[in-house]
């Protein structure tokens, strides 16, 4: 029993972190078609922001609740800068955004290595995250629960934004046909910038969560980027629902694999699982059909 429950709970938390990392991508990649390989570094920026917030206001109970919106804005602004400086010229060749942003990610990593102590910095867990909650006889760490609650909150906010404001429609319209959107009266540049801001900001939020789970250093982003892309792809591009399910499934699979084998093999198996899945369902869990030939 315990052997089955523990990985399920652990995996759910891992999935939640993965979801947080993937959520911003589901906007910038899923909705806008930009393959932002620097997303992991935006996550890193969020984590460093949490550290700086704790330096300024102390590592008290409020530090994390304060860090979350600040990280959203800071990472969002970095995203905005990237959009304005580079991405805006590349919407017509989306595959190339992948390569450009690889360059951006290299630069951000090296900059972080030189600006902050190379060993990384501490982000302290506030005391209200100490301890565990007993679930089905298993002590579930509060910090894991926090990640899950945060992920649910972000998903809900994002879904509401896309669904209940006209904005969601505008993003989708802009991505599908820029010229047509423009001539339908949509200020596509504003839409682009805002979307990229939000997507990058979500990476910042994920970074705060990640800073509570692992190290905050120049390399931290690299471990999230590929799994996050896989999750978005497996979920079906542009499909929030699919992203959620895929993230959770990958998290749980990782946890079970890690329980049965080693941490390294678990990584390999999880990758293989997603690759095989994508092979079977190349369009992901949920798909959009079109008739268009090209």
């Amino acid at each position, binding site marked *: 029993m315990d052997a089955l429950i523990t990985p399920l709970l652990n995996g759910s938390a891992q999935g939640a972190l993965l979801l947080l990392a993937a959520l911003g991508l589901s906007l910038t990649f899923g909705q806008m078609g930009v393959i932002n390989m620097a997303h992991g570094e935006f996550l890193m920026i969020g984590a460093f922001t949490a550290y700086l917030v704790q330096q300024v206001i102390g590592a008290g109970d409020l530090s994390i609740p304060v860090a979350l919106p600040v990280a959203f804005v800071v990472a969002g602004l970095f995203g905005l800068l990237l959009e304005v400086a580079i991405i805006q010229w590349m919407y017509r060749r989306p595959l190339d955004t992948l390569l450009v942003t690889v360059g951006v990610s290299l630069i951000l990593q090296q900059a972080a290595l030189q600006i902050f102590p190379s060993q990384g910095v501490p982000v302290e867990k506030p005391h209200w995250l100490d301890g565990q909650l007993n679930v089905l006889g298993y002590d579930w760490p509060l910090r894991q629960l926090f990640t899950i609650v945060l992920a649910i909150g972000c998903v809900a906010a994002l879904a509401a934004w896309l669904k209940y404001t*006209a904005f969601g429609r505008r993003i*989708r319209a802009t991505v599908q*046909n820029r010229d047509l959107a423009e001539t339908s009266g949509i*200020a596509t540049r504003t839409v682009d910038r805002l979307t990229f801001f939000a997507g990058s900001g979500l990476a910042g939020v994920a970074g705060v969560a990640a800073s509570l789970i692992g190290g905050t250093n120049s390399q931290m982003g690299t471990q999230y980027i590929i799994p996050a892309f896989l999750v978005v792809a497996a979920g079906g591009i542009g499909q929030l629902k699919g992203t959620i399910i895929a993230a959770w499934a990958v998290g749980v699979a990782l946890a079970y694999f890690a329980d049965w084998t080693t941490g390294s093999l678990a990584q390999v198996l999880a990758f293989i699982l997603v690759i095989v899945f994508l092979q079977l369902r190349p369009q992901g869990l949920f798909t959009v059909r*079109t008739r268009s030939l090209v």
Partner: protein
Amino acid sequence: MLELTDVEAGYGRTRVLHGVTVPVGRVVAVLGHNGAGKTTLLRLAIGLIKPSSGRVVFDGEDVTSLAPNQRIARGMAYVPQGQQAFSQLTTLENLQLVADGRRGGKALVDAQLARFPALEQFAARKAGLLSGGQRQQLAIARALITSPKLLILDEPTEGIQPTIVAEIEQTIVQLAAEGINVLLVEQHIGFALEAAERYVVLASGRVTQTGDGGAAATSTVRAAMAI
């Protein structure tokens, strides 16, 4: 309402328009063979491409450097060539998108759904799954929602069934009567001239003929366009 004066434009190094001036009029028809530069001219009018020289003036304001959405906000509307729609949005969303933020948005959408029964029937279908003609109807509906002062139409009847072609033609005539300006590219020369106050014939990016509209002009234009 719209004045295009001595505009030059092209794509990359290719010049497509060489000093084109479009006559002023309530309904202006642009005629010409394939590749003459008609679409290019309309893209320039709406702001999708910028002229390398020349001016675009709308309603007394120089809009040459404005983005398309700013021109839309000033009362232009555009139906591009080629049955374009936001394929992943539903028919209804395609319309709502344009109505968003406008006063009485829902009523505006409903009015267009009433005009095009096919759209009403497939309101919930992804626009990408519509037939070509249905998509073209959707494109026209999208333009009409904004109650524009100037309607720019690029071959609006291409691929549309005759009954609806007739209806669209009627609509254009009616809109013109209501005081809306129209810049029209059409291959149905007969209809185009019937509706037009002024016309211009393009050939290889140059104006070869201009004149007043009306059915009488048909034969002169046909002669001018004969290869």
